[in-house]
């Protein structure tokens, strides 16, 4: 465990994973919000 590569990979890898996870979450949340807007449009069209 004294290999510096291990500590660098764990630090940089986790940072990359955190950034990618947040970006994926942003996309999912936006898609969900747009779906809700479309549902509102559909409801309005029914009325």
């Amino acid at each position, binding site marked *: 465990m004294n290999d510096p590569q291990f*500590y*660098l990979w764990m630090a940089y890898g*986790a*940072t990359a994973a*955190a*950034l990618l996870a947040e*970006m994926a979450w942003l996309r999912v949340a936006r898609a969900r919000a*747009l779906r*809700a*807007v479309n549902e509102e449009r559909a409801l309005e069209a029914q009325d």
Partner: protein
Amino acid sequence: MSFFYFSSPATFYRLAGSLAPGFFALALVAGLAGLYVGFAVAPTDAQQGEVYRVIFIHVPAAWMSMFIYFVMACYAAMALTFNSRMAAMLARALAPTGAMFTFVALWTGAFWGRPTWGTYWVWDARLTSELVLLFLYLGFIALAKAFEDPRRGDRAASLLAIIGVVNLPIIYFSVQWWNTLHQGSSVSLRGTSMHVAMLWGMLLVAFAFWMYAIAASLNRARTLILERERRTRWVRDLR
């Protein structure tokens, strides 16, 4: 143009949509440049060896964790003072990114601490106050979502954000106020004790994180606007 022009969700939605891709691009370019300087230009540290290169993300992430909290608290204060919906939404939009950077600062600090201090974690004043910051972010997010009426959630969470500001000077000055294992600041407005390439690598990544935080928050604010304003005419008319 009045001071409150951009506090209209409709205006802000369009502005954020046009600005966010540029901030993402800046973050990508600065991030790659920072990593290049950090790994290819900056020399190996005489005492810590290669493992010191963790600081190229650890220090910028720690800076961003505090800076984002400060900005979030400013928006929270504006939300309470002016009863501004947009300010409350911006405070909410910043919180997850701030929490992510706080987590990254703690995590990367642990993987720097193990080979240099001999331990992943110690209940040192700097580390503990940074952990409290993570809990403040998580508390803000949880409190904002705890109410059925989002405006009540905004007010409660804003109050917590403002109270939590007291933790920022504690984090910053903890290494001076207490005898901590964590080292003091290597970079200040008066100068630095680091090699110039190390400093540039760190500053470039800090800039990249800053640009990323703006881009991510603008995107999240747009989603929050869509969620809250989905019954309004302007949202339904969006293409």
